[in-house]
């Protein structure tokens, strides 16, 4: 085969060699046709072939035996290799057994330098040399040819690979530059060297596992979107329903096409979605504890009763919907601001819970005990409920207090009211400045206030007669969703002098606004009657029992008989009324104040009546 080159084949074709072979084939075919002519001829032919074959075989055996014997004999010069079995059978029988000794043949290298080669032989050799050179050259050329092809192919592959890697790395760098942490994949199962982490490190374990996605390469080097990233982004939606009508809703806007790669966008969306889903998950777990507060979870919608304006019932509907969903048109947007604020507050609370988890984790752990620590759901809905309830209660109470203050002011009895809805917020700056907790950031300390009980405080300075020291009535409003009050508690602290004068206890607790309002009405009217008026007409006035009534005798006239007049003080729904009745006749007179201004002062009126 070595001699077969393109040229030689061409030469062969030119010389018509193949034609010859064709002719040969043809003749064989012919022979087959003629062979079966006679049995005799066929047998002779086979016999001849047999003979020829056996002759060849004999000769081959003879030559092989000779070669074997020759080599064995040559080897037998070495005493170690003298084994009769290595010789052929014939040689053993005819030679060795008849005294032919080992090592009788020697071999030596010979110098052929001075050999005289015959011309024919020389020619033959040069001819062969030439042929071999030619073949070698051809083979080399062919090898070079394939090598070039291979190298070209490899270069092409390499170029493709380089382009692919460049693109992949460009995308990775671009993602990394945007601040996403990239880390190596520890498990070798997935053929992705790197993964991006976009989840929150302190998230619920279920969501933490979803917070990372491998960055795999596709055919062109782009990054394949992981199933985690390709999920439909979701968003929290809060709707406000008043009287069966949706009056406001909040929802993250559908992501506008921003700058950057598609991967970055989907990472960002996935991150947002993860927070929203975790938020909803935690809240739906929380609803189980909040059934008594009217929180329901039905059809993946959380319903929260919220105090509404005036008398309408207001409900919050919280659900988690795909982000692409459009806001239906023709909706009322009156309370969009409220819904937005609630949604933002819930998000802030969850992120606060995340940092609190880190904080708790890094504190010295309690010693191990057999009691398992249960994992508490973060207070999200609880905080929201407490806030809504607290604000409503505080506002309604403060509205009442202001009204009363106004009315009493109109009647000439100055009762300034000082109120703060949430105490710790009002002294926030001081508490943050002096805080010595280094592990919590200021924003977390701020948010921490919301997870603690809310305490509102109102201070009412009681009207007093001239000269007597001013006394203060303190109303503290505390809201906790949980033990011990499970709602709002009002604590009224009376100044001790008032308490002793009126025979009341200094501290009273109430469960709802109506209770404390009626109690305050009563206490204030009692205070006016028993202390303010009585203080003014000290020697002439008498009071009786726990009724807001004062009996004032008229100035002792010369007649000796004084007229006793009953004055009853009534304060209700911000309206102050004085009822005058005489003990003798049934004539009655009534004067009322509503705080509209330009009215006669109470004390003057009484003066006028009593004289």
């Amino acid at each position, binding site marked *: 085969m070595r001699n077969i080159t393109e040229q030689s084949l061409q030469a062969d074709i030119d010389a018509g060699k193949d034609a010859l072979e064709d002719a040969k084939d043809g003749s064989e075919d012919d022979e087959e046709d003629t062979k079966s002519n006679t049995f005799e001829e066929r047998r002779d032919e086979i016999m001849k072939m047999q003979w020829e074959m056996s002759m060849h075989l004999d000769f081959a055996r003879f030559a092989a035996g000779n070669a074997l014997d020759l080599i064995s004999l040559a080897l037998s010069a070495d005493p170690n290799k003298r084994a009769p079995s290595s010789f052929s059978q014939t040689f053993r029988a005819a030679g060795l057994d008849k005294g032919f000794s080992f090592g009788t043949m020697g071999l030596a290298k010979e110098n052929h330098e001075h050999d005289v080669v015959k011309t024919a032989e020389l020619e033959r050799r040069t001819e062969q040399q030439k042929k071999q050179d030619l073949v070698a050259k051809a083979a080399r050329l062919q090898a070079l040819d394939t090598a070039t092809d291979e190298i070209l192919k490899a270069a092409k592959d390499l170029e493709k690979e380089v382009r692919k890697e460049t693109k992949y790395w460009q995308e990775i760098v671009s993602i990394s530059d945007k601040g996403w942490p990239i880390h190596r994949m520890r498990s070798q199962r997935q053929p992705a060297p790197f993964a991006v982490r976009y989840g929150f*490190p302190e998230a619920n374990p279920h969501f933490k596992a979803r917070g990372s996605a491998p960055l795999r390469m596709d055919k062109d080097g782009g990054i394949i979107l992981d199933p985690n990233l390709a999920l439909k982004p979701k968003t929290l939606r809060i709707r406000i329903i008043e009287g069966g009508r949706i009056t406001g809703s909040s929802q993250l806007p559908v992501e506008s096409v921003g700058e950057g790669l598609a991967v970055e966008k989907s990472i960002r969306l996935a991150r947002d979605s993860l927070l929203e889903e975790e938020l909803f998950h935690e809240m739906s777990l929380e609803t189980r504890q909040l059934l008594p507060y009217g929180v329901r979870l039905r059809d993946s919608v959380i319903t929260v009763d919220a105090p509404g304006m005036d008398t309408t019932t207001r409900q919050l509907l919280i659900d988690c919907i795909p982000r692409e969903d459009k806001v239906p048109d023709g909706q009322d947007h009156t309370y969009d601001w409220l819904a937005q604020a609630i949604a933002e507050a819930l998000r802030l609370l969850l992120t606060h819970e995340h940092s609190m988890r*880190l904080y708790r*984790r*890094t*504190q*010295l*752990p*309690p*010693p*191990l*005990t*057999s009691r398992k620590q249960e994992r508490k759901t973060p207070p999200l809905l609880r905080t929201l409920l407490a806030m809504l309830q607290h604000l409503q209660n505080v506002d309604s109470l403060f509205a009442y207090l202001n009204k009363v203050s106004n009315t009493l002011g109109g009647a000439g009895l100055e009762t300034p009211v000082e109120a703060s809805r949430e105490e710790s917020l009002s002294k926030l700056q001081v508490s943050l400045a*002096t*805080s*010595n*907790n280094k*592990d919590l950031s200021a924003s977390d300390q701020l948010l921490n206030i919301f997870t603690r009980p809310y305490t509102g405080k109102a201070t009412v300075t009681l009207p007093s007669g001239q000269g007597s020291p001013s006394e203060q009535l303190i109303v503290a409003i505390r809201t906790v969703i949980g033990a011990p009050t499970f709602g709002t508690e009002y604590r009224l602290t009376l100044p001790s002098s008032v308490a002793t004068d009126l025979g009341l206890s200094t501290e009273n607790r109430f469960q709802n606004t109506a209770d404390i309002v009626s109690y305050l009405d009563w206490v204030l009217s009692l205070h006016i009657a028993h202390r303010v008026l009585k203080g003014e007409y000290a020697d002439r006035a008498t009071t009786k029992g726990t009724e807001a009534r004062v009996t004032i005798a008229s100035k002792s006239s010369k007649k000796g008989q004084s007229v006793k007049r009953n004055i009853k003080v009534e304060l209700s729904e911000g309206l102050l009324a004085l009822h005058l009745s005489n003990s003798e006749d049934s004539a009655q007179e009534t004067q009322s104040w509503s705080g509209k201004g330009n009215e006669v002062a109470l004390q003057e009126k009484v003066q006028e009546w009593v004289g």
Partner: protein
Amino acid sequence: MHELLLYGQVSAARHDQVLKILAGFAAMQPRRILQRRIIYRPEREPEEPGSHLRRGGTQNVAVKQKQQSTTPTQLYYTHLVQKLSDEDFGKGDSKASETLSADVDFEGGQEPRWSSLFEDMPDTGDRGVSIRFTNSTDLIGGDPHTFMITSGPNRFVTEYYVEGHRFVHGNVVVFLHRILHEPAVRNLQTGPKVNPPAFDSLQLLDQSGTYILEAKVRVQDFKDASVLEAGVNELKAFQTSMRGCVELSLPDRLTMDTRVKYKLAPGVVTKAQAQQAQAPQNR
């Protein structure tokens, strides 16, 4: 409360690296800890070992074993631990009138800074971790030094400072620290300083600057085998994960002995000492 402990060493050169590894492992920033520890020793000398056993024959009628004497047979060194911050150092020498104060302002959200600490000798059991009983009591008022002096009665031995970083990984508390002390004045002191000296003036106890890595799990229900097992396993899991970074090992329990050793009164020659003294003469 019992503590499960493992210790390792980190050379000063590797400190930063190990600090970073631990921060990554525990997923938290290191928390810098500065402490002062003051050692107290009981005033009473320990009894001679075996002195409660009867020696030789007796003519007394055999009676039941005497009631356990009320005084404890073992005496221990105790610690006073003060949490410090960087600002506390180098406030200058204290005046004679100043005293230590452990008063805590709970209203202002302060945590107690002083605590008295008792550490027992580690248990003999072999669980692959060192187990010892400890008891720590926070002091929330008064002069802690006086408290310790009178509660023993104890006397002041010495004070030293601990500087390092703390990590928390699950229930394992990792404390990478080294010990500092004030050179020279140690032997002259009769009581703890009111204000610690400047931080720069402190010297390392181990001049090479090697850090100690202490991994600790605290166990409340020591009697509950499953709780103890869980604690041991968690600590061992930490040991395994740190392999190749820091080799954590079980210290020799005798090196952590907190008992006061019995010392012969001066002048008394024991039989063994007498024999030893005579031996060369006989030769």
